[in-house]
């Protein structure tokens, strides 16, 4: 008898808020900047410095909580999480523990078979750590002789979102992450750029015999910096655990660090050390008590969320197209282009394939002009279409000059021109007819010149040959 295995997956996501200032001080919150140029006594943990919470960050966390259908705490508390590390200057991180701002929510993830509801255990606010830079003569981590610390990131606001172990396959996990990212970006809370680390996530994976409700030992996958990589990592880990169980072994609780640069290399392992963070309420801060009025105001600022839009657009397009448009942040432009007269399916194809490759901000595009391009896309040279699309986000962009490059393939339009050219070059025409077929190119060239290059060369060749014939 063979066992069917059911994977159990939970996610822990960190999203860096793009507030003007840091979480507990007035330093600028921004990526880049000379090392340690965005620091002050508070984020460097000088003696006597005290944290003052960033109101904006609290409001944005509440907003995210509302978007995830969480209950917003009437009284939330910051805690100190104690541990020594060079990137943690106070030797405690101000975080939240048993009284987080947002709890018990969910995110509905549309899939091709309907909607999968993923429980959100909690979403809380904390401060980010600094960046350790390990240096050696070679400039590589290996053999590092010193650690430098850049405190620019230290103290920037970070929201931690923890899901219930409600995910059972890698693809849904990936869709969840994409949808969450899009939600966060649309709410204006974060750039959520994986490559800059403004969105990071860890994945907990275990497997169990299908139909059982036990929770077996889980492993934690870290260092996942792309959604596809996460999906691959999850699949590999599920397969690894199943192999272990089927060989009669046990899965150890451990953290697996995947190196995205070396997909095939085995994961680095570190044994889970039961660390005691000695959490206690942060005495330098008073509890956060968001009033009902504030919560309702923030609720009013949330528009139709991406998940709902995927479901709605799936009624017009395929689920796949709807998903790509929404999680790519393209569906609002799509709707506008369709409203301007473009075919829904054509518009989706152009946006999801060619447009997305241009990297143009959808917000900068005039939908009416793009609709014209979409409608004419099979009528103009491919090169012209690509050129037009690359400029579609430019201020004052007009489609008309490109539409004028429509390819002329209509013989009714071409024949009179060809006849006129043959007549005007009767000498060459005679030579051609007497066997000097190399002159064909001369006539084609004349026609192309006459039509300003808009004639379809294939059709011109064919007609010149026929009319000289």
């Amino acid at each position, binding site marked *: 008898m063979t066992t069917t295995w059911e994977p159990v997956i939970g996610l822990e996501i960190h999203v860096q808020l793009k507030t003007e200032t840091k979480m507990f001080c007035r330093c600028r919150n921004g990526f880049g900047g000379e090392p340690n140029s965005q620091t002050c*006594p508070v984020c460097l943990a*000088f*003696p006597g410095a*005290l944290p003052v919470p960033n109101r904006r960050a609290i409001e944005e966390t509440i907003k995210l909580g509302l978007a995830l259908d969480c209950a917003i705490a009437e009284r939330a508390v910051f805690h100190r999480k*104690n541990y020594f590390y*060079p990137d943690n200057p106070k*030797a405690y991180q101000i975080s939240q523990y048993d009284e987080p701002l947002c709890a018990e929510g969910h995110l509905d993830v549309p899939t091709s078979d309907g909607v999968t509801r993923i429980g959100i255990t909690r979403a809380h606010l904390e401060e980010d750590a600094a960046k350790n830079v390990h240096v050696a003569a070679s400039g590589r981590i290996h053999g590092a002789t010193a*650690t430098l610390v850049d405190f620019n990131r230290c103290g920037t606001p970070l929201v931690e979102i923890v899901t219930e172990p409600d995910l059972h396959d890698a693809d849904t996990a990936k869709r969840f992450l994409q949808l969450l990212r899009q939600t966060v970006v649309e709410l204006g809370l974060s750039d959520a750029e994986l490559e800059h680390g403004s969105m990071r996530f860890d994945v907990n994976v275990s497997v169990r015999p299908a139909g059982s409700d036990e929770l077996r030992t889980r492993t934690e996958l870290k260092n996942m910096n792309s959604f596809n990589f996460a999906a691959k990592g999850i699949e590999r880990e599920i397969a690894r655990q199943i192999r272990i169980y089927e060989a009669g072994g046990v899965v150890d609780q451990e953290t697996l660090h995947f190196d995205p640069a070396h997909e095939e290399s085995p994961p680095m392992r570190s044994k889970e050390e039961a660390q005691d963070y000695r959490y206690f309420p942060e*005495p330098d801060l008073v509890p956060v008590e968001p009033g009902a009025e504030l919560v309702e105001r923030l609720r009013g600022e949330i528009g139709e969320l991406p998940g709902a839009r995927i479901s709605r657009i799936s009624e017009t397009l395929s689920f796949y197209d709807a998903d790509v448009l929404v999680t790519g942040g393209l569906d609002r432009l799509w709707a506008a282009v369709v409203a301007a007269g473009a075919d829904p399916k054509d518009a989706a194809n152009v946006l999801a394939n060619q447009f997305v490759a241009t990297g143009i901000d959808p917000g900068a595009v005039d939908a009416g002009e793009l609709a014209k391009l979409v409608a004419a896309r099979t009528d103009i040279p491919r090169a012209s279409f690509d050129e037009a699309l690359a400029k579609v986000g430019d201020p004052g962009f007009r489609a008309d000059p490109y539409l004028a490059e429509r390819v002329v393939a209509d013989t009714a339009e071409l024949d009179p021109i060809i006849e006129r050219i043959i007549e005007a070059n009767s000498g060459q025409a005679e030579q051609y007819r007497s066997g000097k077929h190399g002159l064909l190119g001369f006539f084609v060239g004349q026609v192309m010149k006459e039509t300003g290059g808009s004639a379809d060369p294939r059709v011109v060749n064919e007609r010149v040959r026929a009319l000289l014939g």
Partner: protein
Amino acid sequence: MTVDTLRLSAEEANRLVTQGEVSSDELYRAYLDAIGERDPELHAFLYVCENDPGEGIPIAIKDVIGTRGIPTTAGSKILESYVPVYDATVIANCRKRGLRVIGKTNTDEFAMGSSTENSAFGPSHNPWDPTRVPGGSGGGSAAAVSAGLAPWALGSDTGGSIKQPAALCGHVGLRPTYGTVSRYGVVAFASSLDQVGPVARNVRDCAFLYSVISGRDTNDSTTVDVPRVELPTADDLKGLRIGVPKEMNGAEGIESGVTAAVQSALERAESLGASVEECSLPRSVDYGVACYYLIAPAEASANLARYDGVRYGLRDDGADFREMVMRTRDAGFGDEPKRRIMIGAYALSAGYYDAYYGTAQKVRTVIKREHDELFERFDVLVSPTSPTVAFPIGAKIDDPVAMYMNDVLTIPSCMAGLPGMNIPCGLSEGLPVGLQLIGPQFGENTIFRAGHALEQAIGFDVVPERLR
């Protein structure tokens, strides 16, 4: 004109300067001279400023309060080389009023102690008897004000560090209501208890200095708006309802001379028109010290964790980060911070949190409630500040629990976040006895009024006998 710093109040010093009878510089130099003359014996100062800018009168600052460009050690080797890059809010407030820092005063390491014997730089001495302690942790500020080395000073009080030294050195010290004075820039010991407060020669100076340093601060989110401070003038106590908690007046270990001086002060209060009635704070006194010695060390264990040798202060190198931190902290901290860090880390650890830190927090709520109930019937509560007069240097240094019990009378109201002020009320065996006035939350004006009237009636001479 020669300035007698031993007898000069801050109010009078300020009058001399503003009316041009003495220049700010002359006054500053007079205090520097006094320091030069008497501090070698007292060791009240860890650092003396040559010429701090300003146009007003001098002030001495406890060395846990950060001063830009002026070393701030908190009495610890781990901060021996540390010079702050910013002023604490209380210092900025003092500077706005033209006050000039004359020096940084000695303290038990990180304000942990009741005698200044825990200072990494050696103890301070009591101006009334240099073989005795000045109290602690703010013994340096107390000795400085008592011996005329500064007209007034700032201290910090976590469980009695302003009130108890004021009692042992015979002057006035206020621990304000928690949240009325900014902690920004003050080296943290126990964040939910630390309060900066004034150390002065009389109640009016104390009230004035409180008005300078108090108020909401955008850099300390635990601060609040503070009622306007009224400088006390009345000589009577008509209508004042004084409660005398029996557990705090009959506690074990209170010296008879202390009881006698406080009793006589209470009789004076009655003759000034106050009503005096016995009351009770049973659990506050029984559990206050135990509760304090869980909460304060727990918070300290986290607050002192930042001294890791990475960014400032002492660094003792090691093979890796962990070893460097361990060696730095071993070399930099004295026994008392180490003891409290260990107690605190233990009280917070998984499996013990509920039994220790969690229970202590609940008891703290009970203590608060017990005090609140009494303030429905009374305007102020009165007890001795310290169970004993100043004790000899070395007498309790090897017995931490005996040292901790020094604070049995000051701790309960600190745990409740309430204001408390010491005024001298007499002598016992030739040494000052302190009387503690505890008020309700934001009840500073009531305390000032009561303290001022009693001070006038008692007529205690704050100048140490041997210096007169």
